[in-house]
């Protein structure tokens, strides 16, 4: 059987669309909406809150929550704040949505720690940097 991978049967509309002047901007916006939607969905599932209940407490409708979670609509600042408040969003949630790392405190214990009296010290580091310390 011939491998057709190298031989495209017709023009790919997606490849053509990627050359369009609006595509890049829309693509970036869609990616951000998806990140937000997935984070809201994960946090809601984690807390065991239904879409209906979240909608009620955030003063909106279940349909809007569904569309936000699917990454299908842009969300206003006020509604985002209400949803974040109901779902107890913390720095980590915002970090996931906006793609930044949240500094955390790590505790050093032992003779290598700088505070010789307590043998303990604390330092603010980014999570991925914590693994670079080998006390």
């Amino acid at each position, binding site marked *: 059987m011939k491998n*057709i991978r190298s031989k495209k049967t017709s023009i790919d509309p*997606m490849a053509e669309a990627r050359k369009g002047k609006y595509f890049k901007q829309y693509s970036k916006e869609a990616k951000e909406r998806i990140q937000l939607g997935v984070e809201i969905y994960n946090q809601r599932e984690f807390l065991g809150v239904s879409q209906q209940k979240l909608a009620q407490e955030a003063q909106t409708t279940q349909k809007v929550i569904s569309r936000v979670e699917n*990454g299908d609509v842009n969300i206003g600042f006020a509604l985002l704040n209400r949803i974040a408040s109901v779902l107890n969003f913390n720095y980590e949630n915002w970090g996931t949505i906006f793609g930044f790392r949240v500094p955390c405190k790590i505790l050093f214990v032992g003779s290598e720690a700088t505070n010789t009296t307590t043998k303990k010290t604390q330092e603010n580091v980014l999570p991925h940097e914590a693994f670079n310390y080998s006390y």
Partner: protein
Amino acid sequence: METGYYYHKPLKACPVKEYFKEYSLNEDDTEKIKKRKQKILADIDAKIMNIQENKGRPVPPISRPIHGYSFFEIKNPKNENTVIRILYFRYENKIVLLHAFEKPASYDTKKEKREVDKEYKIGEDYLNIFKLNPKNYEKY
């Protein structure tokens, strides 16, 4: 991980790619229509990329498994009343886009349910044919 369009030999075409042609830009399209078409394709592309980053695993609520079938579904709104459904499955290290169709955003009648089931069965047929010849795909 790579993504590919399933190629259906009897049609001599890739069903998902054929569906996307509805959103190809035409010279006589107004600026508003051009923007709308590109937005729909950009939204679908972002969802496919998200799934690809997750190694093809369904990422709720972006994609979900379909009860009774071996594939997953990506949903994207076309307008207020219509939703675009794209069926895909994972095969070895690939995401294979099998079939795409539209259905009402909400439906209750038996007739509508039957029509949706018919589309799912087409997707299942494509999946089984692909498994017999896994080279039948085009790069996404």
